[in-house]
Structures are given as structure tokens and as C-alpha cells.
């Protein structure tokens, strides 16, 4: 029996297969023709077998190329699927066979491919970060960034692209057809029914904003909530808008989702002009606002059903879709509950489910984990990871550094209505905040020992020193010993150290470096 999960796995396998398609010749495990040639009359099980075969070849080859054990590759693939070749992380808690996980993870850690950290919040959760070496290895091996088969072709070497594309489209087409046949459901969608890929700009951007502005006129003068934000989010990307409250994130989302009319600039979502065709945009987006906007007069399943019907599904189709989503989001036992009776985490899940009823091209999430307890938050991250792995384009706003770091492919740091910097989290850290920031606050002002400070300044690895009021802040690439020197300097001057902190390079230090201000959450 082929269920949805079956489909999914197959697609994963097919996705893995593209690597094979690309490298089969080199590996000699199977010829490229074997990998790409899908027999026109293959049955579903045969197709599955082919996919499995290509998958196996892929593993074998990659393992050979990198010297990583195949089991290790499994884990790396999970890692890669969760964050691309960036500083990925994975929550290992849910893994079912701890023994296996441990040994695999240990191997990876020993090889320097992965760095393991325990979660501060929940000690049972282990987070794995893909190290630079791991990224390099993966890149060398020509691995696939994620099981986003829709975009998979983009990541494969140029010359192999047509072959792989053919393989993928063929396989997936055939899978879908067979599954439909087996279920005896509707005929395949016609070209008109398909998502309007042709409407997308050539660049394939899911979201494009050019100098987007919003000025509010109030009795106290004009307030510039957004002062010219430009963004480009690729299809399949997980993009984060990171900034403190009041930075203009929600206003930006409001403009992109047609609920706020910009006072300047232009924006396209799913290839549709936000201002010229708001209804067209609304058809293609799913929005999870910050507030609980569930229909409180309706039950959990009714919330999903009616939303589906708003988007044109028939009554029976809508019921089916609602059921799918209830299962997917673990809300089946609450289906009859009124929306008012849900816990915070359940409500948030229902809102995400509701935003997905019509298969939106872009999912917008405005502060999805604000106000949730840490456990629920981590669970929600898992859900978002999984959606992203499926190829869902997501734009998320957050004021939690760690959230952006954990989830997003790329991040734009926003403050006072402007983008301060954008790029992958790694890029940002390299570019602006590679330094560790050491802050020491003294009781009664900064010590007058300027020579100490200048001694620090000339120290290798220290890039900047800021003295401000009662505190000194040192930006250092090699922070060892700096904190000690600052404390001793204070002691020599007879000043008590009131507060000392050392921040490792993170989005927080990026923010600090970019704005010179503490990150205010």
C-alpha cells in the first residue's frame, strides 16, 4: 500500500538519486543510463526499486569519495536536509535508536564534521552543528543540499542538469500517476491547474521586494516604520527577518501579504505584484500572524475545513484536506474542540496547518514561537524544519537570535526599518561578527589605565575596543585572556567588576557589531 509517507520517501530517494545520476559514471556502481532511464511501463514497485538502487549507489559513491561511513552519511544527509550546507543543526532527541545514533554521531564528531552541543533549555536535546569541515566534505562529495526535489536540479553540476532533470521529472510524474491510479482519485491536474510557475520572474524568486517603504502619519509627525527594504527570497528557501521588536518586521510581512499598503517601493510574491493584484497574492500565500486569529466560533477541524472552502475546495475535498492536516499536525484528538479551548502550542500548530490548506507557494510566519514555552518552541522548530525539507518556501520573522540561527538558510538583520546585513548565518558571522565580544562593566566608571587598553589594542586578534560610560567592550578574534586582563585592570584601579560577559560569535555579536547596540529582545 502506498500512502503519503511512501510517496515522500520515494521522492527522497529520487532526490538522492540525482546525485547518482550525476556521478554514476565516475563511481562505476551503475551506468548513468541505468539511473536516468525510467522504463515507461515500470510498475510502482519497480520504480521504487530503481529509486532505492540509485539511492544506494549514491551513498556508496559518496562514501567512497569522502571516507565517511555510509551510516555517517545518513546522518549528514539529515543534517544537510535541515539546513543546507550551512551551520545546520539537528535535534537528536527524537531519534529512535539511541545506540546507533550515538555511534554514528560519535564517528562524525571524531572526524570533525559535526560539533555537538547540548541544548541549554532541555538537557535531553543534543544539537549537532555541521562544522566547516563537514560542509566542505559534503560539498566535495557533491551531495544534495536537501530533499527538496522541486529545486534539486539547481544544486547539481551544470553539465548533468538535463539528465537529472529528466530523471526527476519522469520519476515523480510516474509516481504521482501511479498513486492516483491506485487510489482511483481525480485525473492529473492540467497545465492550467498547476501553480503558475510561468508567472514567476526568471530568477525564480518567491519573494522580491524593492525599496519597500511604509510611513505612518500620526499626530506626532510621520513615523517611518520601514525605510526601504529590499529582499529576494528564492523558491524553497527558508528566509528569516531578524530584529528586535519594533524593527519593522511585522510591517514588512504585512506589506508582502497585502494587509498593509506600502507608501513606497514595489514587491512581488510568487511572481505577483503585491499592490497591483492583492487577490492573486492572497491565493498563493499562507500567513501565520503573530496573534491568534483562529475562528473562535468554530471547532478545530471546522477552522481547517472552512479555510479550505474559502480557497475553493468542495465540501468533501475540504473535509479530506482538514483530516490530512489534523493528522500531520497531531491534532486529531482535538478535532472537535473549539478553537478557544486550545493551548498556546496547539493553537499555533492549527494556525500553521490552516495557512497550508491551499498549498501556498510561500508561507509567512510572524514570530511563530513568541510566547511559547521552550519545549513547545523546539517542537515547532521541528515542524518548520520538516516543512522546509519538503520544499516549502518560508519567510519567518523572529526576534530570537537562536531561532534564526536554527532555522533559516538566509537571514536579514533588520532594525529601525532597514536591513543592516543579510546573508547566510555563516556569512554574517564571517563578515561582521567574527569576533568574540567581551564586555566588562565596572562599579564607578572605566579604569583610567589607558595603557592597559592600548596594550590590549596592540594585542593580536583584538580588532576593536569601545569604552562607554562604565563599560568596556572588546571585539577579539582570539579572546583568550582578554577578560582576565580587563578584570585585573579594574582591580589595579581599585574598581569592582560589576558585570562581565563573553559572547561567542553569533548573530548577537553580529548585531552588536553592526549597530553598536545590545540586542534588545
Amino acid at each position, binding site marked *: 500500500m502506498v500512502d503519503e*509517507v511512501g510517496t515522500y520517501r520515494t521522492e527522497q530517494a529520487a532526490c538522492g538519486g540525482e546525485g547518482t545520476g550525476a556521478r554514476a559514471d565516475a563511481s562505476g556502481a551503475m551506468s548513468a543510463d541505468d539511473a536516468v532511464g525510467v522504463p515507461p511501463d515500470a510498475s510502482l514497485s519497480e520504480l521504487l526499486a530503481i529509486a532505492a538502487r540509485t539511492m544506494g549507489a549514491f551513498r556508496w559513491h559518496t562514501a567512497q569519495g569522502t571516507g565517511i561511513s555510509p551510516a555517517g552519511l545518513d546522518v549528514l544527509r539529515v543534517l544537510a536536509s535541515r539546513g543546507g550546507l550551512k551551520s545546520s543543526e539537528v535535534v537528536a532527541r527524537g531519534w*529512535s535508536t539511541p545506540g546507533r545514533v550515538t555511534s554514528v554521531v560519535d564517528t562524525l564528531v571524531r572526524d570533525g564534521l559535526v560539533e555537538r552541543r547540548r541544548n541549554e533549555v532541555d538537557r535531553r536535546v543534543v544539537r549537532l552543528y555541521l562544522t566547516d569541515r563537514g560542509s566542505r566534505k559534503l560539498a566535495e562529495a557533491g551531495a544534495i543540499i536537501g530533499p527538496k526535489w522541486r529545486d534539486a536540479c539547481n544544486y547539481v553540476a551544470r553539465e548533468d542538469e538535463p539528465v537529472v532533470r529528466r530523471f526527476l521529472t519522469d520519476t515523480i510524474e510516474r509516481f504521482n500517476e501511479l498513486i492516483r491510479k491506485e487510489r482511483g482519485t481525480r485525473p492529473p491536474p492540467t497545465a492550467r491547474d498547476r501553480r503558475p510557475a510561468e508567472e514567476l520572474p526568471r530568477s525564480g524568486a518567491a519573494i522580491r521586494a524593492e525599496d519597500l517603504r511604509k510611513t505612518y502619519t500620526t499626530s506626532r509627525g510621520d513615523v517611518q516604520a520601514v525605510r526601504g527594504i529590499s529582499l529576494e527570497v528564492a523558491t524553497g528557501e527558508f528566509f528569516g527577518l531578524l530584529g528586535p521588536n519594533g524593527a519593522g518586521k511585522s510591517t514588512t510581512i504585512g506589506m508582502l*501579504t497585502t494587509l498593509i499598503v506600502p507608501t513606497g517601493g514595489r514587491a512581488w510574491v510568487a511572481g505577483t505584484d503585491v499592490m497591483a493584484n492583492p*487577490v492573486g497574492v492572497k491565493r498563493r*500565500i499562507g500567513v501565520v500572524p503573530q496573534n491568534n486569529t483562529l475562528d473562535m466560533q468554530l471547532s478545530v477541524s*471546522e477552522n481547517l475545513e472552512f479555510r479550505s*472552502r474559502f480557497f475553493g475546495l468542495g465540501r468533501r475535498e475540504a473535509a479530506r484536506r482538514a483530516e*490530512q492536516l489534523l493528522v500531520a499536525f*497531531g491534532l486529531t484528538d482535538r478535532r472537535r474542540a473549539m478553537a478557544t479551548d486550545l493551548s498556546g502550542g496547539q493553537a499555533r500548530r492549527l494556525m500553521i496547518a490552516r495557512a497550508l490548506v491551499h498549498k501556498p507557494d510561500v508561507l509567512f510566519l510572524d514570530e511563530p514561537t513568541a510566547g511559547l*514555552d521552550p519545549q513547545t518552541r523546539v517542537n515547532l522548530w521541528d515542524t518548520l524544519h520538516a516543512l522546509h525539507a519538503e520544499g516549502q518556501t518560508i519567510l519567518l520573522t523572529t526576534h530570537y537570535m537562536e531561532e534564526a540561527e536554527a532555522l533559516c538558510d538566509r537571514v536579514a538583520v533588520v532594525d529601525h526599518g532597514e536591513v543592516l546585513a543579510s546573508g547566510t548565518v555563516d556569512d554574517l558571522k564571517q563578515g561582521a561578527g567574527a569576533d568574540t565580544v567581551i564586555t566588562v562593566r565596572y562599579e564607578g566608571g572605566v579604569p583610567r589605565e589607558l595603557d592597559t587598553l592600548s596594550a590590549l589594542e596592540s594585542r593580536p586578534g583584538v580588532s576593536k575596543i569601545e569604552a562607554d560610560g562604565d563599560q568596556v567592550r572588546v571585539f577579539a578574534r582570539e579572546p583568550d585572556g582578554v577578560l582576565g586582563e580587563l578584570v585585573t585592570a579594574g582591580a589595579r584601579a581599585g574598581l569592582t567588576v560589576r558585570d562581565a560577559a563573553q559572547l561567542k560569535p553569533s548573530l548577537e555579536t553580529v548585531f552588536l557589531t553592526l549597530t553598536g547596540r545590545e540586542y534588545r529582545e
Partner: protein
Amino acid sequence: MTTTSNTPAGRAAPISAESGTSSLTGAVAVISGAPVPHPTMARTFAAMMAREFRVLGRNLPSTFTRSIIQPLLWVFVFTYVMPKIGAASLFEAGGGYPGAAGGAGGTTFSTILLPGLMASMLLMQGITATTFPLVMEFSWQRTIEDRALAPVPLNVLAIQKITAGAVQAFLGALIVIPIVLFVHAAGQTPHAHVTNWALLALILVAASLLTAALGLLLGTLMDPRKMQMLFAAILLPATMLGCVFYPWSALHHIRWLQIAVLFNPMVYISEGLRAVLTPEVGHLAMWAVLLVLVGGAVLIGYLGSEAFSRRVLNQRVAELSWVRAGLGNIQHRKMLLRLVDD
């Protein structure tokens, strides 16, 4: 794993090293298993109405009870209790109602009340059914955003809200009829006979739409904290001065009032129904009634839908100034000013 009330999202199957894939079993269904939607304006509109009826059906007992009590009590007191205790003569002492067919016994009070209470119900239901939900939707959680994201233009959403309110108003008016017909003391039977059913239907529909449109406009402009004012400042005066308990022609004794109440749309609803239901009682000219009801429904509907769309799109202005200045009422005043300015 701890047992928390918030079960992990989508964790029907945990991330497993075996499968080597991400979790969220159903995420598959979420994306690849989704049916392709074909939203059209008509389908979306129909789905929204279906949602209203679902809610209405669920709240039917309480809605029904709430809407029946007021007319029932009015009728009971005025056409049963008062005549029984002899107070009915008070009404006739004033010389009876002019224009009433001066037949034996004159016009019963229930004859006056039938169209009057129907009109009162139209206003009450039309406004409460539209204004209350809207004010809630616009208030702190802004659930209006939910509906605003449906794939239709905002003014279609406004029209849908008017339609839903109008249906409730219409049903409310129908409830009054059996009450007035059956609850009264002996000899207090209302004299109603309809000659033009089409005209009755037209007036009922136009009045329902007018009251619901008024409800939309009020719900859009109303400051949620001033909700009590709705009754004191709008519903009560509109009812008491809306020719519910007396025909307009009887007001000739107080000429200034007779002219003043012409600004009350309620008057046209009462008098319109009076003209088609109990024509023997004197009533306003039909052209004036139709002009105000139909023209008003169109005009107020237009204004309401414009105000609504702007409120949905501009709300953040209000929120921002509200937060910044900490002045709640400014929000409301400024909204009005902006509407006037634009």
C-alpha cells in the same frame, strides 16, 4: 520525552535514523498531497456564508431566545397587561390615532405594534449581528486578518458581512409576526392584511440590508470600549423615536418632532412595513420609504465597505499611534477624520 500538554507538533513519527528523513509524517500530505484549489469569488463567498450559517446554527438556541424575549415582552405588556388593567384607555384618551379607520373600536395597539416591532427587530438584529462580531474581530487579536486573507477583494468581504447580517435581520423580523398575532388580550387582535406581497418582500429585504450596512459602518468605526454607547446612543433613540409605538402621521401634534424624526432611518422601516401590512393606519408616502430604504442600503453599504477596507488595511496606523501616544480614543477620532479627509 516528557509528557506535556503540548504534544510535539507533527510527531506522529519521530525523526528516525533509519529512515534518515525528517519528521512530520503528515508533512507529506501537507505539501505534496494537497489538492489544487480553484478559488473563485462565488465559491469563496458561498463558503463564507456557509460559515455564518454554521455558527448561526450552533448558536441557534441562544440567538433565538435572545431575539424573541424583547418583542414578546413588549407585546405582552402593551396588548395583554395594559388592556386588562384598563390602561389601554390611556392611549385612546389622546384621541386615538389619526388616520385610523374610525370603525368600531378604532385601531388596536397591536396593529400599530406589528410593523413597529418588526422594524425594531430588523434594526436590532441587523446591527447586533453585524456590529458585535466585527468589533470583536477588529479588537485585540485582530481575527479580521484571517478573513482578510481569503482570496477575494476586501469589499467583497464587506458585502458578505452585510449579507450575513441582513439574513439574521430578516429572520428576526419574521419571528415577530406570530408573536404579535397570537399574544394579546381579547379584542386586541391586530388588523393586518397584505395586498402587495412583492412590495412587502422588497421592503423587508431593503430594510435588512440597510440595517446590516449600518451595522457594518458602526462596527468599523466603533471604538470597542464604547460598545455600551451603541445601545444608549443609537439603538434606544432610534427605536423610541422610530415610529415603533406610534405612526408617523400621529406626530402632527408635535410638528418639530415629526420633522426631526425624518432623519431617523428607522422611521422609514416602520412606516414602510406599516404601509404594506396595516394600510388602514396612516403612513408615510411609499416613494419616500423606498427612496430611503433602497438608496440608504446602497449608500451606507458603499460607505461601510469603503470604511471597512480602509480599516483592514490601515489599522496599523491606529495601533501605532495608540501605542505611541497611549491615547485610546484618538484612534477612533482619527479614523473618522481620515475618512472625511480622504
